[in-house]
């Protein structure tokens, strides 16, 4: 019997790619596992839990019972829906919070800042940008603490300033908690809109504005007739993103704990209280499901716009 000489024959390539399908699948596996377990599984698990009466402690912690739509019905119970500390109140509060602090506050302030720093001297731009961005990048706990000190009734910087200007001081965290978190969130997040609009404005060729200068346009006319129409796409992107982020933010908790008496209890904070202070996981899960559905609606809008743009 003769044996064929074993030749180190190069493997055949069916369809050349820089990374073969097999290697590609291997490369995707670690990320796929992590994302599946911590993103995709929670999505479906939260739906499942929302139909049970699971709790943190006690009998139903280990053997939760299927309760159908009970959790949803209790969330949407018309008798209590609008009461403070109930889901409906929280949802309406969050809507107002998103409208006032994200769509009006962050977006408009960001747009104004982005336009202003196009024209001001570099050192003004540098200083303004530094503080606006600092408000955005510093850890949320630090920001919460800084505002806690800033708003302190007796010694806080704000009341010191107001007194200096001859205005009456106030205990704003007690008197106007909603407006405090609106201003707080505007302050915290304006940097994102500013940077997005700033990069949008700087992607417009300067010759467009120079042509308008030659034609005698004022700064306002340039903004309205050239700047704004050309960054329309960026504005839509910005509005959707900051809406989603503001809707999901938990940061105001660090300033107000959701109080006083539930007056700053956004849905994220409501969710936390129901699940981790009242220990009603089933009901908390139902809140999570509703939040995700709202997120899904925004995400689909965002992605469909993104897809159109890519085409």
């Amino acid at each position: 019997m003769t044996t064929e000489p074993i030749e180190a024959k190069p493997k055949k390539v069916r369809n050349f790619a820089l990374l073969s399908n097999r290697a590609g699948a291997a490369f995707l596996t670690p990320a796929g596992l992590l994302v599946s377990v911590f993103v995709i599984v929670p999505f479906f698990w939260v739906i499942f839990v929302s139909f049970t009466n699971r709790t943190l402690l006690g009998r139903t912690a280990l053997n939760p019972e299927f309760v159908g739509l009970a959790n949803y019905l209790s969330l949407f119970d018309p008798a209590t829906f609008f009461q403070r500390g109930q889901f409906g109140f929280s949802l309406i509060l969050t809507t107002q919070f998103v409208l006032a602090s994200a769509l009006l506050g962050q977006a408009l302030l960001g747009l104004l800042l982005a336009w202003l720093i196009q024209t001001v001297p570099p050192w003004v731009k540098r200083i303004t940008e530094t503080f606006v961005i600092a408000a955005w990048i510093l850890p949320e706990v630090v920001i919460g603490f800084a505002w806690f000190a800033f708003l302190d009734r007796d010694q806080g910087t704000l009341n010191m300033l107001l007194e200096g200007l001859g205005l009456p001081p106030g205990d704003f965290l007690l008197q106007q908690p909603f407006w405090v978190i609106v201003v707080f969130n505007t302050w915290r997040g304006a940097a994102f809109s500013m940077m997005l609009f700033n990069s949008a404005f700087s992607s417009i060729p300067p010759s467009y504005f120079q042509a308008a200068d030659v034609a005698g346009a004022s700064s306002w006319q340039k903004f309205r007739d050239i700047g704004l129409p050309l960054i329309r796409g960026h504005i839509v992107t910005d509005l959707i993103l900051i809406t989603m982020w503001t809707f999901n933010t938990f940061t105001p908790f660090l300033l107000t704990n959701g109080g006083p008496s539930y007056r700053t209890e956004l849905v994220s904070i409501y969710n936390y209280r129901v699940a981790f202070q009242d220990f009603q996981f089933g009901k908390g899960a139902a809140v999570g499901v509703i939040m995700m559905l709202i997120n899904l609606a925004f995400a689909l809008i965002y992605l469909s716009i993104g897809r159109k743009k890519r085409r």
Partner: protein
Amino acid sequence: MKLTIPAFVGRIAFSALAALIGAIFALPLLWFLFAPFNARAELGLALPDPWTLNNFVTVFGNSYAVQALWNSFIQAVGGVILVGAAATLAAYALSRSSIPGKGAVTYILLLFSSVVSGSAAMVPIFLIVSAAGLMDTHLAVILTFAGGLLPTAMFILRDFIDSIPKSYEESAMVAGASPVQAFFDVALPVIRPGIVVVVVWGFVNIWGSFLIPFILLRSDSNMPASVAIYSFYSEAGTPIVTLLAAYSLIYSLPVIVLYLFVSWKFGFRFFGGIKA
């Protein structure tokens, strides 16, 4: 260039307005700039009198405070290693292989990552971690953040890799390199700036996070600095505010340094949604 008088006035007004907004943004942070160096503890804005570094010395003498910083570090570094490695491999595959359905994978991941936020999914994340027996461990925080940050990290990196000409790897392969050699010799070094950005972004996110460690960790020995600071100022009793301010400043430093590093190294580029 000569300016007309109205244009000149307009410029001044613009600058004044920009400076005013900048000042308003600075106000809540001013106290925070001075208090750490003030020997007397108060919430009022005052120039330190006398200036002192004693607060920092005291903070570093507190083993609980130091432990919390170390915990933040472990969690952020652990998370970032996982995110960096897994995102690099996955983004490379999404960009360079022709696996069927990779477009759909990308779309679904993007969708899920924006739908499943920490505040909406806190219940199931808690349940998964508890089912896995990982409650009150660093690993729980590391894995949760790795999963949560990965989709965005993958997109940032995939866009980055897409912008790199394929001719780098092609030329290596034509010259005789195997796919593995081409990946390590050529692709990886060229992708490195993108990986650095993702790693910095991930580090800042985990380092600054509050909610996830707040619900997943129980014992003091595992708490990161964010949770420590929160419990200091929210719990009953008058906190020693100057100490807390000094501690917060130390805790903020890595974020500030990394931010300056990224803007120095890569110029200030806009990374869409650099914050989760």
